[in-house]
């Protein structure tokens, strides 16, 4: 790992945390709890495509832990962590197959982030009926994931430019 990569990793991590903060400032319609833009995923997706999945995983992990402790508190940390890990696993898998574009990978990430959160929520309240929210969260995952994918695709060339 050279110093340039270290600097880039630090920069991307800081950006990811900042995205988490910006996201909190944007009010979202409360039709269904839990709908989020997933802005931080822009950074994770860009990192995956520029520095590789391994680096992206650690940036995602550091972001979730720091954002959780800074803004959300410990309970919120658990939800974010479940969503982030599941979403990352699916994105890395699809990235490796190479059958999907950056937009498709991002959509999958958005969808599975919501699925992970709802699984933890169902475990916490011990009520499987949480699945009632699933359709809304799936659709919102597709929409936000698509937008995040488009943003990532437009940003990526600038990150890769030497």
């Amino acid at each position, binding site marked *: 790992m050279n110093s340039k990569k270290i600097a880039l990793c630090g920069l991307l991590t800081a950006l990811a945390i900042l995205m988490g903060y910006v996201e909190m400032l944007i009010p979202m319609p409360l039709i269904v709890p839990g709908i989020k833009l997933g802005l931080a995923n822009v950074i994770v997706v860009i990192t995956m495509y520029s520095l590789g999945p391994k680096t992206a995983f650690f940036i995602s992990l550091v972001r979730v832990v720091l954002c959780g402790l800074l803004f959300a508190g410990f309970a919120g940390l658990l939800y974010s962590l479940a969503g982030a890990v599941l979403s990352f696993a699916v994105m890395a898998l699809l990235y490796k197959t190479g059958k999907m574009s950056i937009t498709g990978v991002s959509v999958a990430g958005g969808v599975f982030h919501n699925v992970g959160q709802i699984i933890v929520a169902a475990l*916490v309240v011990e009520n499987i009926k949480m699945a009632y929210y699933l*359709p809304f969260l799936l659709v919102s995952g597709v929409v936000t994931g698509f937008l995040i994918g488009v943003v990532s695709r437009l940003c990526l060339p600038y990150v890769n430019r030497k």
Partner: protein
Amino acid sequence: MKRMDWILILAVLVIAGAIYFFYMGGAKAGGEAVITVDGEVYATLPLSEDASLRVETEEGYNIVEIRDGYAMVTEADCRDGICENHRKISKNGENIVCLPHKMVVEITGGENPAADMVVG
């Protein structure tokens, strides 16, 4: 955008639609609101009568109200207040969840509408 992208998006939307109709297709107006805290039944309120119940949990309180056949959470001392902003519910299977308090209000069919309140 590759072809697989569209297949993925379509698949997710179809699954979402299927779950939606599975839940909502047969949803009729429910008979009662079951309030559970941490997985255990706290109270059961019939939707036919207006009522207001203060649900005390270890983490804090929620005030559940029944009005005109709808159940809603009007007040809570939790941090995010998502349950307060949730729309009112009346159909079978619909629910309001307060994650910080582990409290769930769920509408069920209500085979026993004669019972006024079961506190357990």
